[in-house]
């Protein structure tokens, strides 16, 4: 029976190998993409498959586990620049601008920063704002003119509340929380 249809068996084998290769590639590339996405997704980190495996977990372990942070850190949050005085006493150019916060943000004069504040008194890498434990935090990165919450100079990391004003050098800003939607994504 098998011998009679031998060419058919071989053809099946050949198609099977090709199909298996592409099925594998499809699944693997999707999984890889999902993981990279999860890692760069706002408020979420992917739990790695390659943490130290627990004996209780059966092998093979789950491939990708996306773990979004719970509220209240939300997609719609943004950093709004308030009135401030620019160089030579003129009104600052950035006043009224609003920057969406989509994850850890580097603030500075550098073009590579997440939020670019092109003012001379802002250091090239001034501070960073990042989500953790459901809240936003600010950390000064050794800037020349300092980062202030209210009138207090920030040293180390400090929690950022919507009510307080935060100042990067001359630029005064305020965290605005998104109240419309709940949850990430």
């Amino acid at each position, binding site marked *: 029976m098998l011998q009679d249809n031998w060419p058919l068996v071989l053809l099946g084998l050949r198609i099977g190998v090709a199909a298996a290769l592409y099925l*594998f590639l499809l699944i693997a590339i999707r999984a890889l993409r999902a*993981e990279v996405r999860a*890692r760069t997704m706002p408020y979420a980190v992917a739990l790695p498959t390659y943490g*130290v495996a627990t004996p209780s977990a059966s092998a093979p372990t789950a491939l990708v586990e*996306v*773990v979004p942070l719970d509220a209240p850190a939300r997609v719609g949050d943004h950093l709004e620049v308030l009135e401030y005085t620019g160089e030579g006493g003129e009104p600052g150019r950035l006043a009224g601008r609003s920057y969406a916060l989509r994850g850890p943000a580097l603030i500075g004069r550098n073009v590579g920063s997440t939020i670019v504040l092109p003012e001379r008194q802002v250091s090239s890498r001034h501070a960073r704002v990042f989500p953790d434990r459901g809240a936003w935090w600010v950390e000064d990165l050794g800037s020349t003119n300092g980062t202030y919450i209210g009138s207090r100079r920030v040293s180390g990391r400090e929690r950022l509340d919507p009510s307080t004003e935060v100042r990067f050098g001359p630029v005064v800003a305020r965290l605005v929380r998104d109240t419309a939607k709940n949850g990430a994504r």
Partner: protein
Amino acid sequence: MTALPGSFEGGSFAASTIATVRRPRRYTVVLWLLPALVLVAAPMSVVLTTRTAPPNDLERAVLLAALLPLVTPLLMRAMRRTWDPLLLSPVWMLCAMGLAVIARVQPTRLNVQVLWITLGWALFIVLVGFPPLLSWMRRFRTLWLGLAILAVLSTLFLADDVNGSGTRIWLRVGPLTIQPGEVLRIALIAFIATYLSERGHLLTAARTNLGRIGRLDIPSRVYWLPLLGMVALSLLAVAAQRDFGPAILFVAAFLGMLYIATGRRDAIALAFVGFVVLAPLAYTASAHVHTRITAWIDPWADARGVGYQSLQAIGGFVFGGVIGSGPGYGFPGVIPAAHTDYPLAVIGEEWGLVGSLAVVLLYGLFVARGLTRAQFSDSRFEQYLGAGLALSVGVQIIVVSAGVLRMLPLTGVTSPFVSYGGSSMLMAWVILALMSRTGETPSARFTPEAGDAVRRTQHIAYALLAGFVAIAAGLGYWQVARPDLANDPRVGGERLNLEAVRVERGRLLDRNGTVLADTVLSPAGALRRYTDPSAVHALGFTSPRFGTSGAEAAVSDTLMGRTTTTPADTWRDLLHVPRAGTDVRLTLDNRLQRTAAAAMGNSIGAAVAIDPRTGDILALISNPTFNPSFGEEEWTRLLNDPKSPLLNRVTQGLYTPGSTFKTVTLAAAVEAGLVKPEDAATCPKEVVIDGSKVTSNNEPPGKQTKTAADAYAYSCNTYFAQLGVRVGEAKLRAMSQALGLTEAPPFALPTSTGRLSTDQKFLSSNAGLAASAYGQGQLQISPLELGLATAAIANGGVVPRPRLFLNDPPGAWRSAMSPETARLVTQMMVRGTTDGWAATAAIPGINVAAKTGSAEVAPGESSDALFIAFAPAEKPTIAVVVVKERGGAGSTQAGPVARAIIDAWIKMNPVR
């Protein structure tokens, strides 16, 4: 909401409330099982196709290999290491395809390759399970690197030239041969990663003791000298071996890691410039490199020598096409050293673009996975080490694939996991072990510094992606866009030869079924026999070395049974039902062909007989002929012979038509209503047109031109010179075009295009017009074109489409003149044989229509003798053109040949 599964170090989110989204686990199972299946199926599909004996050790060995991917996750779990299917499974798939290659080209070494894979895997398991692996790599970096450099240098004294290629890069250790260059790569990358993770920030020159050269920031030399020194030392070591493949990988890994760590593009640009400057040194330093570059630039130039390997590999891709020949059915054996240097070409041939693209994608996945693991690692050292290893593997794959695809010169690096080979296989598994150990604890904290490294790793990934896309494009080019190369003897010749033994090439038959060419198969190969040497230009030849020509080329696919017209054919092909060559019937008549050949004798020239009703080529003679079963020496002689025996003079020879062209002028004049046969005419001895003199002393003895018909029959130049001016450029051109004299006729064999003048404005002057009108001037017309024009007059003004194969439907090519014009011209042509110069073709009882031509081609030499004729005039069944180069007068030299052909044909096919 579920609890966070497992613990993981450094996770700052462990304390927060977390919602877990789980991906379905079944995918993981698929990624676990598929590699094992493919590991059995891919080599088995080759083994089962090519084997002649019942199951043997080979097959048991393969089955054993399939157990490895199944137990790997279990073993790793036992060692408390995490199994990453995205990194490991592509490797198994690649090993499977490598086994399929070796099963095909080196079947006896299949179990050896399985052994190498098992050893590599064992090494992997040991290294992965060795807890301080990475910290030892770090701590003893200089020791490793020093030992590796010493090992490389020792090859200068102790090396074995394993494959006789001239590069002495192997060390023999007991039964193993090892390439220290492979070890050096890993040691060097570990060294660079350590250095950059400890002192990389100093190289950014932000706050360090720096100098400036122009716009370049130069950090203090104490920071960069050790790093650069070690890289340079490693490069020198491999350069001393005259092995530049690894050097490329070193440089790429070094620059990539430097970029990720410091983001200094200026340093990379500088290094790139240095590379470009130094690369020519390698070219001059080593004859080996020199040969490879010569073979790369133009492998066709020395197709049997240095270019051979590359061209045979390209042939593999071309023959494979999209779906491939099927495992076991290709001819990868013709590629020298395919199992080490060209596995991709073997996969491309047997598995098609489907398979070769899958291999490239698998490599891409592997490299991408390595990079993401490195990217998100929480330790700088691991970030750099992982990225450096992934990058060097990626560059290695791009370089070797580009070499196989002739996009770059061949560099002599192997394809990891696929190539046959000991040390490269082992070192690939070591790299895999190191990559598995990087990124085990990914960073949870997103610091700006880490963000920079992540972004720069992304840039590296994009650069590699571009390389992989280029490779995929290269595969597409050879496998899809260049099917024409299959018939290039230098590319596809060897395979065609092998295929010819597998398939009995169909016979070529004449219109009555007489065999013109057949094939005798013997174990030594296929021998093609030709029965009629005079038909060589119509039949052509088929040679694995020198290609195919003539009818052999035109219907090659049919003769080889390669025409898949129905789905059933395709299905049979897929099942590898042996194909049978199909016989092809030509329009030639063997008896007429032999008559024509005898009539032409040894005269250099051409003769063609056409059935004016159907366009059938009944006989085709081009002298001198040649022996179609020529060998190497004779081929060279044929190519250099000043008489051009290989040229098909009927279809591709261009001749001055001489007085035969008066027929065209006459047809144009009759069509325009300027001339009737009975119109009064004279033939002056001399006329001057536009200041140029035309003479005529053509009248046969005792004859005098009284009518237009006389002028044509007696071939009066002065009359036709004047007639040409009366007809005018536009009408003469129009008639020539209508007869197809200025176009390449649509034909199965290559045809030349005739022309009225070489100089665009030649016909605009009356002098040029006059000279052309009687067949001189700058006219250049092929015998086939002339024959079709003659056939058109015979066929009531319709030019038939010439055909060589009886299976092609007969048809009209174009309409040239009204039937009335054709009738009048025929009438005058008949006059030529009854009362004119063409009388040499007269046949008693038959009305033959004909015109002579004696074309002056070189002053002081004999003219070319031409003759056009058809018969019987009332209901023509044959039209003939005869050309004898330097033959003399058309009437006496070419006329009798035409007569013999027509006579034979009419005797064979009596007029009913």
